[in-house]
């Protein structure tokens, strides 16, 4: 398995065998008896932090898998559950009790249109997915409602890249702007910062950085910050390149 990391694979390629190792496989990989086989084209990636393998490609359609961390929009409110849109083929179900410390009398105050950061608990291709807003230890740990800020869409590949350890763009951005960010593997990214201008800069930089080399990002950020400070109404921040994505 290790030998194939960061290599391009095609559907049907045998990635490796599972002997006694505990291996977590993610999107794009299927277990067949004791071998792991790729089910889509892309580059095989391994995350040391999350300790799992997945196949990364420029996909836009999101297929939910168990343990995916996603950003959802609440579209419907029921007495004991919410219907959430996570970009999959069907709306997902979020129980009102899947929050830390939630009881019958203490339900979360979520409205239609709120953003939630949650984890996929059940994901079958025939059923609607089920979400929870807490970790395996039943603590909030970052899950829950996302307040204020701005959310934008990006490709699945970019969202996986942002979650990886060697993502330079977020570190570089952090040197210049104070912001908080939540990345959903369903291609949605939520950003919040001190004021709108900075949030817009962060959002545009992340979108534009997809096709930039790491050493181009810092000059780009500095240039936009400089131009922002000069003029009060915002000047265009490479908007054509966003449109080409």
């Amino acid at each position, binding site marked *: 398995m290790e030998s194939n990391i960061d290599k391009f694979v095609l559907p049907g390629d045998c990635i490796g065998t599972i002997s006694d190792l505990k291996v977590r496989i993610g999107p794009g990989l299927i277990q067949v008896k004791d071998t792991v086989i790729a089910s889509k084209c892309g580059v095989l990636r391994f995350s040391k932090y999350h300790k799992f393998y997945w196949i990364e490609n420029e996909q836009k359609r999101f297929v939910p898998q168990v343990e995916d961390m996603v950003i959802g929009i609440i579209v419907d409110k029921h007495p004991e559950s919410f219907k959430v849109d996570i970009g999959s083929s069907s709306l997902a179900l979020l129980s009102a009790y899947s929050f830390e410390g939630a009881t019958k009398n203490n339900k979360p105050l979520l409205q239609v249109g709120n*953003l939630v950061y949650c984890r996929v608990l059940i994901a079958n291709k025939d059923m609607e997915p089920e979400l929870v807003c807490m970790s395996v230890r039943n603590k909030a740990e970052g899950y829950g409602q996302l307040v204020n800020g*701005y959310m934008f869409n990006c490709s699945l590949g970019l969202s996986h890249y942002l979650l990886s350890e060697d993502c330079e763009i977020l570190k570089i951005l952090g040197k210049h702007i104070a912001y908080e960010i939540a990345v959903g593997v369903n291609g949605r990214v939520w950003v919040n910062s001190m004021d709108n201008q900075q949030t817009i800069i962060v959002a545009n930089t992340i979108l534009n950085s997809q096709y930039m080399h790491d050493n181009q990002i810092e000059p780009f950020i500095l240039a936009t910050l400089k131009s922002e400070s000069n003029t009060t109404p915002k*000047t265009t921040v490479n908007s054509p390149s966003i449109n080409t994505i």
Partner: protein
Amino acid sequence: MKEILSKNEKDFILSSIDQGLRVDGRRLNDMRSIKINFGKQYGMVEVQLGRTRVYTTVTCEVTEPKPERPNEGFFIFNTDVSPMSSVSVDSSRGNPVEAELGRLIERGLKESRAIDTEALCIVAGSKVWKVKTNVHVLDDCGNLLDCASISVITALLHFRKPDVTVVGNDATIHPIDEREPVPLSIHHTPISITFGFFPKAIMIVDPDNKEEQVMDGKLSFYVNVHKEICGVSKGGGMSTTIEQVIKCSKISVIRATEITQLIREALHQNIQSRQKPSTRRKGLPFEIVEHSVPEPTTVAGTTVDIKMEIDTNNKQQQQTTSKPTTTTNNNSNNNNKEETKTKTTVDTSSIKQQQQQNNNNNSTTSNVKNTDIEMKDKKKTIEIDSDSDSEEEDTVVLSSTNTTKTTPSVNNPAKSTTTKSEEPTITSKPAVAKQQEQASPINLDEDSEDLSVALLKKKPAAKKKAAAKK
């Protein structure tokens, strides 16, 4: 299913616009970048306004006019919003966006007299042109109307209808390859510019899909470069003040001028690029002829020379060596060919192999080369027919193999692709080919033309074959 926008996004967009910021970094009055792509045929245009994409095709046919308007042709607009364009498009139900889009563009063009229906008349009362414009929305990322209007007017400007000559009541429509097609008569280029309104009297130009869902009202101006308002569309939404409307009209003229400039440049470039290849083709045969140095090749010393040519490395050298011996034979082409016939039969085995390859490969050499056969006939005495059909004919493999591939398995004319860039080789002697390559490529081409010339007796047949292959 409608496209869902979260509360966070709505609040953010509204508060940003309040501060004069737009989410994609544009200024309030900035439009997104426009890209115009033309298709192969006249009248096919794809326009991208940011990420919104609209594809328009224009076609025409001849029909009878309406009895009450015998002099006027028809302009028909058809809009098709693809379900791929947006989540909120439901193909089972009629889409109001679709109908509105088509209607607005049609009325904008017709009522402002941008398109002239009287110019479409061929024979009054019986034959008129019907120009059909199909607008396909491929991607809806906001501001469909602007993108569609740019795409429609560009397609109409780009379109060419076939030339017609009218004699009395008979009209002859000339096909496009016979006579240059004629552009439509478009008097001016109206462009639509859309504005979005927000609270506190803030107005933006060219809203994208998120802004469209959040804004209070929308106003579209259909203007042209001459500051003429060809149409205004405001469907519902909040009320606007007079100052706002006047301001919108001024901004729209400025934007329309920029866009019209862009359209004209793109059209000009495209029309130019269409005309270039034809002139290139005409120039090609003469180029080769000029560069080629006609080298009379002998018939008398054929067998020996041929063998030598095949065996030795530098064919050009051999050709030059054969020169002095062939001077006497240059005039009598017929005799030479007969001799070649008899003499070349000696070395059939290897030649035929190469011959087959030549046949396969030369059949795909440019048609231009075949046309130069006649010019070279007089100069070259060894005429080789390497047409693929005539394998029984005697052919001598000379430098024509420059254009052939080495693989003997290539017996498929369809597969072999002879381009000048290919390595000229003989299957049996790849080394020979490489050296030939090192020689000037132009001479090699010239030799291939020699080879493609048929023997005199079989010349007409070969010519026909060459013509057929064209």
